[in-house]
């Protein structure tokens, strides 16, 4: 066996497959950021397993040169869970869409989160079903006009972060497809976190939901409409860095710096706080009214399912008299026929 080579360039993670997303689709940028993150993680390539469901985004594994499993619609969390439990040495990623993870796959998703399986879930949220050509999804805003809601939807969308935290989630981050720099950073942190990491990527579907995140990505508006949270730093945003978040009773409030309000009055981001109240509020901020939070919103350490399984096995193996199947077959009450 050769020495481990763990110096990679992003291109080492590209497969030879033709990338089949629409020109201009946000997925291309996500791919670019992920291969960067993978290269920077310095983990042997064969340790990566990318599991996906079905959807435009779920084609992802084909475009990587790692191990990949393109599953069935909605079941990626379950498949990824099995992969990780079977071999906790692997670095397991789940690629999924808002339909894949929040509609048909909602149950597996919340259960993976609850169990805190050590996988990294990258959820491409374009607020639409891309692959099936434009039906609304559980994250489409109320009133969205789509192929299956010609007069507008009549239902409240999920807030990804709120659902994740409601399901006992320990890691939640948000990024935007076009911000490759921030995304790379966030993906790396998700990978390094032990436990289920959920990253919501706001992704643009140029064909069926073009511009749904426009306010958050446009050069002119994005500094006002988003805030990038950084651990230990005050929650300041705005083109001129002149706005911040403050607590007002149990609610958040946007304040302007100056006029007596200084950085000291501004909340400091602590993604490691166990109590989820603040993180839920941050994850729920919507423009207008609030800036949309980007970056790692929550990152709390807790025992992972997979490692707990390993240690339970180790413990029992130490004390049990049954060491192999032959021991088992002969255990308990038996008799000899002569």
């Amino acid at each position, binding site marked *: 066996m050769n020495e481990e080579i763990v110096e990679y360039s992003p291109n080492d993670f590209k497969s030879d497959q033709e990338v089949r997303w629409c020109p201009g689709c946000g997925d291309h940028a996500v791919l670019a950021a992920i291969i960067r993150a993978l290269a920077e993680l310095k983990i042997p390539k064969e340790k990566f397993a990318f599991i996906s469901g079905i959807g435009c985004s779920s084609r992802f594994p084909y475009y990587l040169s790692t*191990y990949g499993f393109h599953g069935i619609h909605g*079941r990626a969390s379950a498949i990824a869970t099995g992969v990780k439990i*079977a071999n906790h040495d692997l670095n397991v990623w789940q690629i999924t869409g808002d339909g894949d993870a929040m509609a048909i796959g909602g149950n597996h998703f919340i259960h993976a989160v609850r169990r805190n399986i050590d996988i990294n879930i990258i959820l491409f949220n374009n607020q639409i079903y891309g692959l099936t050509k434009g039906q609304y999804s559980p994250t489409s805003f109320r009133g969205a006009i789509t192929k299956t809601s010609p007069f507008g939807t009549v239902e409240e969308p999920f807030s990804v972060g709120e659902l994740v935290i409601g399901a006992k989630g320990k890691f939640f981050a948000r990024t935007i497809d076009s911000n490759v720099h921030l995304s790379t950073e966030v993906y790396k942190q998700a990978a390094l976190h032990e436990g289920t990491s959920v990253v919501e990527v706001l992704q643009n579907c140029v064909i069926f939901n073009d511009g749904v995140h426009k306010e958050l990505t446009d050069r002119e508006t994005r500094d006002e409409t988003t805030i990038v949270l950084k651990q230990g730093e005050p929650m300041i945003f705005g083109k001129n860095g002149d706005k911040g978040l403050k607590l007002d009773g149990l609610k958040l409030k946007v304040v302007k710096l100056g006029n007596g309000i200084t950085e000291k009055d501004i909340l400091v981001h602590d993604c490691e706080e166990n109590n989820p109240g603040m993180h839920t509020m941050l994850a729920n901020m919507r423009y207008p009214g609030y800036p949309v939070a980007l970056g790692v919103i929550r990152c709390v350490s807790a025992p992972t399912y997979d490692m707990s399984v390993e240690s339970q096995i180790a413990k029992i193996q130490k004390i049990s008299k049954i060491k192999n199947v032959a021991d088992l*077959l002969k255990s308990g009450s038996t008799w000899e026929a002569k």
Partner: protein
Amino acid sequence: MSKSERVIEREEVVIRFSGDSGDGMQLTGTLFSNTSALFGNDLLTFPDYPAEIRAPQGTVGGVSGFQVHVGQSEVYTPGDFADVLVAMNPAAVKANSKYIRDGGVIIIDEDNFTEKNIKKAGYEKDPIEEDRLDRYNIISAPITTLVRETLKDLGLDPKTVIRTKNMFALGMVYFLFGRDLEYTEEYLKSKFSKRPEIIEANSKVLRAGYHYAETIEAMTPIYKVSPASIEKGLYRTIDGNTALSWGFLAAAEKAGLGLFIGSYPITPASGILETLAARKDLGVKSFQAEDEIAGICTALGASFAGNLAITTTSGPGLALKSEAIGLAVMTELPIVIVNVQRGGPSTGLPTKTEQADLMQALYGRNGECPVVVMAASTPSNCFKYAFEAARIALEHMVPVILLSDGFLANGSEPWKIPSMDSLPEIKPPLVKEGDDVFIPYERDPKTLIRRWAIPGTRGREHRIGGLEKTVKGTVSYIPENHEYMVKMRAEKVARVVTKVPDLQTYGDNEGDMLLIGWGGTYGHLLTSVRELRKEGRKVSLAHFNYINPLPANTAEVFSGFEKLVVAELNAGQFIRYLRMEFEELKFKQINKIQGLPFTCKEIKEQCVKLLEE
């Protein structure tokens, strides 16, 4: 009469313990069975209980039964009719009076035959009269009173006292069969090691029952069933679910792989998940999933990651797994899907047995989606077929559906413990590290098996998935490629036939009738054929454990017989499958859809009718 004169030597005998769900009849039956097994009898058990945890007391719906068939020679069924029925209340009589052998014994707790209980059981007034039970030898004992009397000095609360009633009845039965109390007393000691007062109470009552039976001279005759003359070796009793679980453990060890089970609890399959969850000492990764779909999908993930992966369920759960079985077919990953069949359709009769999921196992998926289908046929051979199912899945890179049923799952019998050395090797087509090109769907030209490259193996990175693919794993909509791949997947399954042993008949290679069965009806069909042959009928048996592919010599075996009769616990599924496979042949059928096993009587009667048609 002296005691010895009253002893009747019997080849075999059937005992049925029956009472309210809370009366402890399952335990009583198990203890009697284990005692008999230790004594050296062959036996087979059949627990039969309602779907409610504690169905309403005193009603027929709430009766919980445990039947055991004990024999000197080999025993294959739990018996059609009971020689001895223990009936703790009138409802137990009502539920079972049809199933007592002429001249049989009924032991009843007369304290429970109050007017209220009699009405509750659905009798007008007197069970004995209404069901004409005077044909039987009725031993009416005031069990409740006697138990209270026995324990009056121990200062126990009344509930605890009453709970020992089953031990009194068990004591009586032990006397009736001249059995030792030792095994039961040992059991009580280890079970209640922390509650000596419970041990004492139960033992006392057990002995009281034994001595009571000895005392009342009415209690005749005593049955003697000598030890079976069985093959030398180490034995234990085992039920189907345990045997299945252990078969997978053995297969994983032989293959040198970790064992993963991803399942969602469902009656009567839960026992497998429970048994394997207890085997952390053997490194089992048991995963209780959030539903059946997650059960199979986690298993598929584990299979992708290199484990022997299984998922276990019953009918409705198999329905839910349908889509993911398709993914297993498409990705050609090894996996065993166990379906412990129960009464259907829908939620149906959850605690009852049936064989009505065969078509679902064969065809319950979208597209052309063949898998290997197998079926165990006795509680103990669940071990063998679990092992074989795993071996086929792993060596042929193919999903295998293994069918069991409620009758096998809960039934138990003595089992000669195999040595691990006697089991075949299992060699999955694993790919080592390397830098040459790995082509995921490249096939062995003879077997059509693809190779298995497990994540973590350097240089073998590749992608698989549920879309149609070329040999290289590239998604492809090319018409000819699709047709080719569909045919390859089917042919790969067909070639598993090399692992399928030839079909053996019990009886002759030709004759007037071949009785054909599959799965859990084996014991009943075998016994029926034996008895028919004793009566001079030219009947043989062909019983199937391999359903897809069928044994290579099936047509040949069939061709030796005048009449081909397929007997199954459904409306006719295997027969329809055989009709598809053997266009040239004509089949007749025997069916039962009652949530119960066949009785040999039914089978024999119908065979005779068909023979004489």
